[in-house]
C-alpha cells in the first residue's frame, strides 16, 4: 500500500474535504499534476477543472475554480475560490460559471483594447470553463 499524504480542500465558505490520500490530481494553471506523498514543495495556481483524489477510502472528484494548491511535506492544501463535489454540480451551475467567464471576456476585450494579455487570459478561462462543463457531462 502506497504512502498517504494529508489532503485538505477548503473554499472560503467551508472546508470540503480533509482526508489521508495516496494521490491528488490537480488541474494546475500550467497543466495537470499529480501529487503523491514526498512530492517536492510546490505552489501552483489552479485553472477551472476537476480535481480528483485517490485514497484508502476510495476516489472522490471535485470541480474547482480559481485559487491555488500548496504542496508541502506535510500534505496538500487546495484553496479554491469555488469548489464542490462533482456529483453535486448541476448544468445550471456550469451555465452560470460559463456565463460569468463570457462576461469577463467581453469586459476584458473592452478594457484592454490593445493588450492581448488579459484578453487571452479571459479567453482561456472561458475555454477551461467550457471544457469542464463538457467533461463532467460525460
Amino acid at each position, binding site marked *: 500500500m502506497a504512502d498517504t499524504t494529508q489532503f*485538505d480542500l*477548503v*473554499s*472560503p*465558505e*467551508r*472546508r470540503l474535504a480533509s482526508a489521508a490520500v495516496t494521490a491528488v490530481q490537480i488541474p*494546475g*494553471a*500550467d497543466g495537470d*499534476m499529480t501529487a503523491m506523498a514526498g512530492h*517536492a*514543495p*510546490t*505552489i*501552483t*495556481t489552479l485553472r477551472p477543472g476537476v480535481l480528483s483524489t485517490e485514497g484508502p477510502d476510495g476516489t472522490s472528484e471535485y470541480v474547482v475554480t*480559481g*485559487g*491555488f494548491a*500548496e504542496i*508541502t*511535506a506535510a500534505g496538500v*492544501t487546495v*484553496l479554491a*475560490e*469555488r469548489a464542490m463535489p462533482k456529483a453535486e454540480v448541476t448544468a445550471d451551475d456550469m451555465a452560470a460559471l460559463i456565463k460569468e467567464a463570457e462576461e469577463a471576456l467581453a469586459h476584458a476585450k473592452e*478594457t484592454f483594447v490593445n493588450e492581448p494579455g488579459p484578453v487571452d487570459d479571459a479567453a482561456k478561462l472561458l475555454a477551461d470553463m467550457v471544457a469542464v462543463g463538457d467533461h463532467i457531462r460525460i
Partner: protein
Amino acid sequence: MPSLKDLKNRIESVKSTRKITKAMQMVAAAKLRRAQEAAEQSRPYTERFNAVMAGLAASVGGSDSAPKLLSGTGSDKVQLLIVMTSERGLCGGFNSNIAKLARSHAQKLQAEGKDVKILTVGKKGRDQLKRDFGSLFIDHVDLTEVKRVGYVDAQAIAKDVLARFDAGEFDVATLFYSKFVNVVSQIPTAQQIIPATFEEEEGAEPSTLFDYEPSEEAILADLLPRGVATQIFAGLLENGASEQGARMSAMDNATRNAGEMIDKLTIEFNRSRQAVITNELIEIISGAEAL
C-alpha cells in the same frame, strides 16, 4: 398623578415591549451561533491564504516589478474608506462605533490634506456618515436582500473596488468593520487592504523552498485580487457575528430594563390603588358619622 387606568396601560405596554426585546434577543442568539459558525468555517481558508501570500509577498515584494496591489501606486493622496455596517438597527453601539472610527479616520486624513472617498456597505453606517461626509460617497452596496452573506457578495464588492483601483480612482483602500471578540465585546477595526499588508506571523516556521508554477510573480498577480475579496469576506463575516452579538447584549439590557420598569410601575399602581381604597373608606366613614 396618573390614574389607575393609565398606570395599567403603561404596565401592559412595557410588558409587551419586554416580550419583543426578549424574542429579539433569542433570535439574535440563534443567528449569532450561525454567524460564528460561518466565520469559523472560513478561517482555514483565510489563514492559509494569508500565510502563502505573506511568503510570496516577502520574496517578490522588494522588486520593482511587484504588482501595484502590493507595492501601491507610489502615492497615498486619494484614500478610499470602505465602511461596512449592518442593514438593521437595534444593535447597541455596533454601527455607531464603526462610524465613529471611520469618521475620525476621515477627519485625520482630511487634516493631512488627502482626498477621501467613501464606499459604504450596509445602510446604517451610510445614514450616520451622510451628514458629515455625504459629498464624499462614491458608492453604496446594499445587502438588505442577502439572507446569508456568501463569498459571491464579497467578490462583487471586491470587483467593484478593483475596477476603481485599476481606473486610478484611489491609491489606498482601508476596510472598516467590527472584529468579533465575544458577545459583549466587538472591536471596530480599520484594516488596509490596498496596497496589501500582511501581518508577520509569530513563530512562523522557516519557509520551505517552493517550486512555483507558473512564476512567483504570476501567482502573486493572480492571487492579489483574490486576496482583496478574501479580506472583504472575512470582514463581512466578522461583522455579521459582531452585529448579532451586539444586538444580543443590547436586547438583554433592554429586557432587563423593561423588567425593572414593570416592577416600579407595579409598586406605583398598588400604592395608588390603596390610596383610592383608603379615600373611599374615609368618605364612607365620615358620611356615616355625619348622620
